[in-house]
């Protein structure tokens, strides 16, 4: 079992067509990130994030909290990049700010981004993206920073062209 690349979850695409996800910066849904070891297996067919050590999520350390959604105030919540969603030319896009977990001892191979308030629910885990870091990334009593792509039509994390 291992990560095998980045995926836009098929369930997410379907849920977009039923207005389950709201990426609006102000008043939109809360999107969170969960980190996993390379023992996790996720792909486009992943529909919901799973949590805890038995599901290969990394443990709580520093500002990273293992165990799943706990509301929009969770330290695992991603901040939307400024003025998202946006568009340029014929491409619409949205993106998140970089996420840093501080004072953390973490070894992770990949991540899931999920919607913790999908469809105006609470503590949901509807999967959006599977992210493969390419190799194990480790911090020891330091910062673990996920650098998101530039929020533009050529690079943003989620683009509809």
């Amino acid at each position, binding site marked *: 079992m291992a990560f095998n690349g*980045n995926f836009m979850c098929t369930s997410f695409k379907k849920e977009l067509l039923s207005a389950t996800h709201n990426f609006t910066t102000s008043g939109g849904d809360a999107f969170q990130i969960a980190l996993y070891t390379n023992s996790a297996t996720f792909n486009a067919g992943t529909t919901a994030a799973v949590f805890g050590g038995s599901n290969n999520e990394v443990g709580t350390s520093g500002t990273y909290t293992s165990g799943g959604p706990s509301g929009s105030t969770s330290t695992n919540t991603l901040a939307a990049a400024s003025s998202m969603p946006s568009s340029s030319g014929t491409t619409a896009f949205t993106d998140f700010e970089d996420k840093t977990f501080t004072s953390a001892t973490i070894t992770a191979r990949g991540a899931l981004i999920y919607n913790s308030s999908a469809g105006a629910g609470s503590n949901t885990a509807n999967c959006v993206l599977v992210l493969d*870091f390419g190799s194990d990334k480790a911090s020891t009593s*330091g910062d673990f920073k996920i650098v998101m792509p530039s929020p533009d039509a050529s690079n943003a994390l989620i*683009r509809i062209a």
Partner: protein
Amino acid sequence: MSASLNFELPQHESVVTVQTTNNRGFTPEELAQDCVGKIISVSDTALPGIRDQARAFERHMEKVVAYYMRQAIQSDRTTVYNALMDAGHPELAELIRRL
């Protein structure tokens, strides 16, 4: 002409990058590099004159941003120092001041 929407992630290319530190946080210089990367980007295929000028501007901006980050850190330490003094922890305040 394809009528479908292009809506996939590149499966085997880096979509995000991960930066980590051991036993410290990021330095202002490291953060300034990321900050400027979000503000300014220039294509490798841009006209050489424009590309070189943009890259020179990037390097200059990194120095400016890092300078003000260091200023912010020092200023915040002043705030923390005074908060600790007000709370009756002068030794801890002094430790913060000397960082």
